[in-house]
């Protein structure tokens, strides 16, 4: 198991396009991946559960992966959030 926390920096948060990109990226990995906010947890490969958690700019989330590619998975998703999903 490997996890890391990060603050969401892009304006839209994990909604609309960023949410879709996040889920698509997570789906590429074999590990089970979860995203956690204020003790609420969502499956990072589920667009419906990610959207219903409502992650906005400024929120801190914890990304946890369990599986053979857990390190790679968390690193990639953290990087994606750091890149602000290429928003301005």
């Amino acid at each position, binding site marked *: 198991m490997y996890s890391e926390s990060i603050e969401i920096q*892009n*304006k*839209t948060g994990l*909604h*609309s*396009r*960023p949410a*879709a990109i996040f*889920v698509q990226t997570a789906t590429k990995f074999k590990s089970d991946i979860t995203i956690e906010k204020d003790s609420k947890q969502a*499956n990072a*490969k*589920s*667009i*419906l*559960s990610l*959207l*219903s958690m*409502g992650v906005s700019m400024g929120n801190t989330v914890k990304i946890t992966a369990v599986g053979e590619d857990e390190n790679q998975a968390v690193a990639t998703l953290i990087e994606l959030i750091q890149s602000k999903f290429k*928003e*301005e």
Partner: protein
Amino acid sequence: MEYNGIIGSDGIVIGKAYIYKKEMMIINHNTIDESDLNEELNKVETALLLSKSQINEIIKQATKEFGQEEASIFDAHMMMLEDPELITRIKEMIIKEKIHSSNAANKIIENYIGMFSNIEDEYLKERTADIRDVGNRLIRNLLGITDQDIGKLDSDVIIVAHDLTPSDTALMDKKHVKGFVTNIGGRTSHTAIMARSLEIPAILGLCNITKKVQNGDVLVLDGNTGSLSVNPNERTLLEYQDKIVRYNNFKNKLKDIVKLPSVTLDGRHIEIAANIGGPSEVDSALKYGGDGVGLYRTEFLYMDRDHFPSEEEQFEAYKVVAEKMEGKPVIVRTLDIGGDKKLTYLPLPEELNPFLGFRAIRLCFEMRDMFKTQLKAILRASIYNNILIMYPMISSVDEVIQANKVLEEVKSELRAKDIAFDEKIKCGVMIEIPSAAMTADLIIKEVDFFSIGTNDLCQYTLAVDRMNEKISNLYQPFHPGVLRLIKNVIDESHKVGKFTGMCGEMAGDPVATLLLLGLGLDEFSMSASSLLMIRKIIRNVTLPEAKKIAEHALTLSTSAQIQAYCEKALKELNLMNQEE
């Protein structure tokens, strides 16, 4: 029998009714036996596969017929169906509660909708409609309901439906569908927009027309007047057949004037331009022979996305429009949001009177960086063509001075960086607030032109909310008060040798053309599909004739009198029988 509804798309057609009805979903609430468990779980897999293949088909059709953008909403549908959690939760519920698959799916979908609607976010609220659409598809497939197949029809029909969803119109057999009539919907509903882009007539908002019409009934659909005749008598039918021939001839003849100049009989050139929302609409503006773009609504660049467009993105869009118009003028209106036009990524406080509130130029002054980014992009694109800048929602001259100051600032910044732009770029004001119309003489000193936005000018002058159906009879563009303001604006611009255009609905209304021409309007800007009709009128009248009509109209007291008089004047031109 005759029924009247809302015009969705113009044109006249006679055809057989085809009732498109969706079977009710009846959820099975009984519990199931342990032995049926596997069957229910298999049903979920099968229904899911079927739903995915249906959506794939829709994406294929929609991309082919309407383009990538229209099809992209179905990508979101696909993503939800592929959500691993959705399927797991449905299956778990079937096992745990021993209930039918349709019941479980329905409960899970409702649960998601509930969670979404609790979050304060415009984007998510829109997504609930998508979840409902996807959910209904899944549940119908679980129940084994097959919708009527309108993808392959044997003969020409007029579709009669409660409403049409994007999936319905995407899959429809366009070769045989000759018109739409629906129970609900308005001029801006999906069905209306589709009908116009397919160029087939449509009447909407006919209440319960699906109950009054039967399959195979003969329908006469007059999309020009909004009236639908069901099983008309021989005489009406003959009358309409004649009307169709004349209307189609007229439409075909209109096409002949695409390449002809917009000049009056006595040789005065009038600019007939198109209103566009973005680069994708330039082609139709050119197809109908637009002399330019009289209103480029830049807000669409800011909507349907989740962050502000960058200077580069905006520059690209403005440049594409400018280049495609090949030297013809393009009036770019700076950002007009706020009020009813919201951006998901720009939270604005709720207002009691959004139309009198924090919007357009008022908002741009507060968000100076955003405003400057847009002006920079417009200026940079100005080297590709004849671009003009227009400020919306101006109520007094000091706002114009303030906006010009920002513009000058941006210009010096560009100069300092040696970035090229059109140094002679013209700048104008959209006249849509009565105080601006009254003080046109003061404002014109600061700018090069005016463009009258009649929709808002009417609503502000007459104190009539144009969305409120109860008072729609009071929304009168031909009101003498509105006409006097229009006249004042035109006159003041002419006194100093400058020009006035119009970019509201009125500019594309044939009944108003002679009157506006007579008042001295220099430019008419409208949706592309109206261009040829207005040009036709202008080509068949002299300026002195139009002036006489306008002078007389201004002596009349009521909107109804003025409108009737203008209709009569238009009829006397006998355009239907005019040869070019």
